[in-house]
């Protein structure tokens, strides 16, 4: 019996995924079985409900945030505060720490756990001050040849009057430009919501990873629904249409590898989620530190400049 159409599609997808260099022997995940199961699931083009489940998992209130991983992965953590101009943005954390004895610089968005912290951190939506703080720390890293870890978790940049007056668009552009300039290894991982320009501002890295249940998208499902369907209630349809889940991002070449999560999702076991993320970061950095800085930068730009589909 000839294979069914969707079996063919699955095979094609698998072979495409296997050709992604980082996933070579699935060294990164250390668990090709899980990946295979994941792929079997997406082999049947995921339903609206399945994609929506990814959105819900990515936004789960118990999901580990940037500082939860910092606590578990970095020794001697020292947080750096302020953009040296206007203020200190709670939605963006930056600092120095040791990952297995190697000093690294970290930048990342930070959501809040309770209502006070959420307010203080603007639900993980940085102001321009946050991006300028990240730029400042990228410069420190570049000056002292420290690898950079960037943790992406934001619904988007803060959409407010003051944020606009302080130059939100320009700050996001400048932050990407800073990431395109540094001559040190950089690895970004989307750990929850990778919301639009506010996310990509710190994701122009040598390697871009994505946790299994994270999402990465050009606009929130609600925003997309409001514009294209003229009804924010159609968010599920919108999410299904623009496919923000990790498997699709991998397939489109937007991320280099998927970092596995504990069964049920990262919220179910913070320790195990951190261990898996730590392994992925370590392995990626080990590979990148071998490459000279100029070459890293050249390849990084070439990688991003190759993204897009046209005829």
């Amino acid at each position, binding site marked *: 019996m000839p294979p069914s159409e969707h079996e063919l599609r699955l095979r094609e997808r698998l072979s495409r995924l296997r050709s992604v260099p980082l996933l070579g022997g699935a060294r990164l995940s250390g668990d090709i079985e899980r990946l295979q199961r994941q792929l079997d699931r997406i082999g049947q083009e995921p339903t609206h409900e399945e994609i929506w489940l990814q959105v819900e998992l990515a936004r789960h209130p118990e999901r580990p945030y940037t500082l939860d991983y910092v606590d578990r992965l970095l020794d001697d953590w020292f947080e750096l505060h302020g953009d040296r101009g206007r203020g200190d943005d709670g939605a963006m954390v930056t600092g120095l720490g040791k990952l297995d004895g190697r000093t690294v610089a970290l930048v990342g968005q930070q959501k809040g756990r309770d209502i006070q912290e959420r307010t203080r951190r603007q639900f993980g939506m940085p102001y321009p001050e946050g991006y300028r703080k990240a730029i400042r720390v990228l410069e420190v890293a570049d000056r002292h040849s420290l690898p950079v870890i960037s943790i992406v978790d934001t619904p988007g940049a803060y959409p*407010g009057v003051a944020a*606009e007056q302080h130059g939100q668009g320009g700050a996001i552009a400048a932050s990407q430009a800073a990431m395109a300039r540094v001559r040190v290894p950089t690895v970004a991982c989307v750990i929850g919501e990778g919301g639009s320009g506010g996310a990509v501002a710190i994701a122009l890295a040598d390697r871009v990873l994505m946790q299994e249940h994270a999402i990465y998208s*050009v606009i929130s499902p609600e925003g997309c629904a409001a514009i294209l369907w003229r009804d924010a209630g159609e968010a599920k349809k919108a999410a299904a249409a623009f496919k923000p889940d990790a498997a699709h991002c991998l397939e*489109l070449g937007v991320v280099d590898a998927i970092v596995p999560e504990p069964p049920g999702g990262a919220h179910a076991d913070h320790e195990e989620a951190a261990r898996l993320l730590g392994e992925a970061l370590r392995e990626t950095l080990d590979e990148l530190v071998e490459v000279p800085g100029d070459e890293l930068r050249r390849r990084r730009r070439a990688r991003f400049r190759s993204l*897009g589909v*046209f005829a």
Partner: protein
Amino acid sequence: MARIDVSIETDDKPAPPADHPNTCPGCASHYREDELELALWVCAQCGHHFPMRARTRIARLADVGSFAEDAADLHSEDPLGFFDLRPYAERLAEAEMSTGLAEAMLIGQAAIGGRGCELAVMDFSFMGGSMGSVVGEKLSRACDLAAERAVPLVAVTSSGGARMQEGILSLMQLPKTVCAVEDLHDAGQALIVVMAHPTTAGVLASFASLGDVLLAEPGALIAFTGPRVVQQTTREKLPDDFGLAEQNLRFGHLDAIVPRSEQRETLARLLRLFDAPE
């Protein structure tokens, strides 16, 4: 559409409808198309800048006969099979038909005031000037061509942001164009940006903000998040000139606001200052 007579004076001619594209939103003056064309699509009464098509803009900015288009044959694909209320492929075809353009950006070599440059001009009438893979690729190539020919790049932006129908790949055009501009800068060439109405979201948050010199047209909306979304999300009271070029100038985000009638001369002067070849 039925015409509604809104004139209250003893004028026996009915006034043109207020939403007619040639009715000035600033002062309600109405123009014939040829009048606007002659006036660079600027209202003679109040100075309002009407939207200007990319080809018209190029014809009025570049020296006569100097423009030679690059990468004219690039067309968008539909990587996601995107379908909202209508398929993306259908929206693309319709945009091509109604604008006579292949995409929302034209690039090519040109001269302004006798100085060589590469031009990249966006057209809002092609799907809101949205940036998908083709716009990103064209801007990226314009950077390389400018570097190769050792001339500055002049970009005129008019865009609502990234093209949602291309999903995450449209977001990737932000880092893509940023990397292209960084390469241009490393090659020692300048980027001069003229922001026309509107320059928002993904385009503002990428190459448009990275110009060595940032100019804007009067009254242009220049914002990462537009007023409607800011209002809906934060319930903040918006200042009257929220996000307009004038406010951006006041807050230090622009070098100058340049009316259309002065843009040619201003760009020529900047090209001289950056020693663009004659």
